[in-house]
C-alpha cells in the first residue's frame, strides 16, 4: 500500500513536469496555423519552416552561438577556480569561490538590469559579445558546483600515491585528475549551454534589439503575430537537451555527477 502512494506521487510530479512539453509537441504538430491544443491534424510543416525560414533559423543560430561561447566562458572561469580551491585552498581562492557561487543567487531580473547598465557604462550596449560575457558569468555557478564535486570525488590517496611515485603536479593533473574530472566538466558545460540557450531576460535587456536570440524572438512573437514554429523549435531544443543529458546519464554516473555518493549498486 505504501509503495503505491509513493509511486503515484512521483508519477504525478513527473506528469506535471511533462505536461508543458506534451502541449508544445501537440501545437508543433498541428496542421493548422492556430495555437490550439489538442492538434487538429498532424503536420511537420512547422519544423520545415524552422529550417527553411531565416525568420526563425537566424535567431536560433544566434542563440546557439551565444550558448556555445557562454558555456566555454563559464567553464573557463569555473575550472581554474575550483582547481585552485582544491589544490591550495587559500583564503583568496575561497573568497573568489564564494563570488563564483553568488551569481545564481541573485534575482534574475537584477542580474539582467545590472548587465544592461554595466554595458551602457562600458559603452558596449547592444554588442553581441555583451550577452556572451554576461551569460558566461551568470552561469558560472552550475559548472562551478559540478566541477567542485568532481574534485571532491577524487581520492586524495590516489593523488598522493602518484606523487610518491615521482609525478610532477603537471603529470598528476594530466594523468590522475583530468580523466576523473572530465565527466564533471562536461556536465557543467552542458548545464551552462542549455541554460544559456533558453535564457530570456538577460538576453532581452542586453541585446534584445540588436542581436535577437530565440527566446526573445519567441516572446515578441507571442505578443504580435505568432506561429507554431516556435513550438516546433522548443520541442527540438528540448529533445536535444534530453538527448544530451541521456547520453551523460548513459556514459557517466549521473546521480554521482549531481552529488550522490559513489555506490556499487
Amino acid at each position, binding site marked *: 500500500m505504501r509503495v503505491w502512494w509513493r509511486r503515484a506521487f512521483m508519477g504525478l510530479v513527473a506528469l506535471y513536469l511533462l505536461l508543458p512539453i506534451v502541449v508544445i509537441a501537440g501545437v508543433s504538430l498541428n496542421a493548422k496555423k492556430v495555437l490550439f491544443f489538442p492538434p487538429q491534424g498532424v503536420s511537420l510543416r512547422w519544423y520545415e519552416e524552422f529550417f527553411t525560414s531565416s525568420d526563425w533559423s537566424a535567431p536560433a543560430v544566434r542563440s546557439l552561438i551565444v550558448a556555445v561561447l557562454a558555456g566555454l566562458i563559464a567553464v573557463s572561469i569555473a575550472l581554474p577556480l575550483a582547481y585552485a580551491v582544491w*589544490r591550495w585552498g587559500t583564503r583568496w581562492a575561497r573568497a573568489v569561490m564564494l563570488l563564483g557561487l553568488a551569481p545564481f543567487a541573485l*534575482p*534574475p531580473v537584477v542580474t539582467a538590469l545590472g548587465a544592461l547598465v554595466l554595458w551602457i557604462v562600458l559603452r558596449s550596449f547592444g554588442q553581441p559579445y555583451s550577452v556572451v560575457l554576461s551569460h558566461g558569468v551568470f552561469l558560472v555557478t552550475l559548472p562551478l558546483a559540478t566541477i567542485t564535486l568532481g574534485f571532491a570525488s577524487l581520492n586524495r590517496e590516489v593523488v598522493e600515491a602518484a606523487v610518491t611515485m615521482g609525478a610532477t603536479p603537471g603529470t*598528476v593533473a594530466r594523468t590522475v585528475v583530468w580523466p576523473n574530472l572530465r565527466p564533471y566538466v562536461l556536465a557543467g558545460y552542458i548545464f551552462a549551454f542549455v541554460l544559456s540557450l533558453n535564457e530570456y531576460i538577460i538576453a532581452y535587456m542586453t541585446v534584445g534589439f540588436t542581436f535577437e536570440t530565440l527566446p526573445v524572438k519567441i516572446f515578441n512573437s507571442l505578443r504580435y503575430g505568432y506561429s507554431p514554429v516556435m*513550438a516546433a523549435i522548443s520541442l527540438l531544443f528540448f529533445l536535444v*537537451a534530453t538527448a544530451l543529458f541521456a547520453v551523460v546519464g548513459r556514459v557517466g554516473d549521473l546521480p554521482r555527477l*549531481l552529488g550522490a555518493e559513489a555506490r556499487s549498486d
Partner: protein
Amino acid sequence: MTPDGASSRRGVGPNLLLAWPALALFVLFVGPLVVILAVSLFRRVQSAFFEPAVVLDNYARALEPFYLERLWVTVAIASGAALVCLVIGLPFTYLLARLPRRRQVKYLVLVLASLSLSEVIVAFSWSLMLSRTSGASNALVWLGLLPSPQAWSPGLAAVLLALVFIALPLTVLTFYPPVSRLNPELVEAAATLGASPLRAFMTVVVPVLRRAVAGGLALVFIFVLGAYVIPQSLGRPAQWTLPVQITDQAILKSNLPLAAALAVVLLAAGAAVSIAILAFGLKRQRSEA
C-alpha cells in the same frame, strides 16, 4: 597536506590561476551591482540614459505605496511558490534518492530536461493549458465536474503553477546531494523504533537536513523573486511583480535610475527574507524530544 604533496609550496600558482576568474567575476558580477547602486542615485535624463548625480528621487518613488504594494505582492507570490516547491520537491527528491540508480537516472533526465525549457515557452504552454478555448477546463467540463470552460490564465493560479514548474528542477537539483547522502540506516532505525514512513520523514529526515533545506529554500525563493516572464504573461496587473515594473521602467519607459532603485529595493527585500530563512536553518538545535 595539499593534494600535490607539498606542505605550502604555493608560489605564484594559485594567484595566476585565479587571475582570470577573479577578473571576470569582479568586472561582470560585482561591477553590475556597483553600477546599479550608482545609477539608482543618478538623475533621469530625456536625451541620454542617465546623468551622473546623487539624488534620492528614485528611492522616493521606489518607496511609494504603489511600488511597495508591488513589493509585497512579489514577496508573497515568491514565498508561496517557494513553499510549494519545498513541500513537493523535498519528498520527491527523498523518494527519488531511494530508488535504484537506473530508475533514478530516468527521473533525473526528466528533471534536467525541464530545465531546458525557456521561461517563455513555459509561460506560453501554461497559458494554453489554462485558457478557456483549449485548456484543461474543457476536460473537466467533459468529465462533468465543471459547468462551462473557464479561463484560469491570466491569474494568480496560473502564475503560481508556472513559477513552481520552473523552480521545481532547481529545487530537486539543490536537494539531491544532501538527500542522497543521508545515511539510509537512520530512517531504518526510526522504523524499528516504531515510526511510520511519514513520521520518520518528519522527525528524522527533515530535521537532519535542516541546513540543506534552508539553503535550498532561500535559493529557490530568490530565483522566483526575480522572475519576469511568467508574472508578466500569466498574471493580471494585480499579479505583476516588481521585476515586471523594473523591466517596464528600464526598457519601455527608459527610466533606468528608477529601475535601478527598484532593483535595489528588491535585492534588499530578497536578502532580508533569505537571511531569515538561513538563520532559522542554522540556529542551534534546541531540545526537540
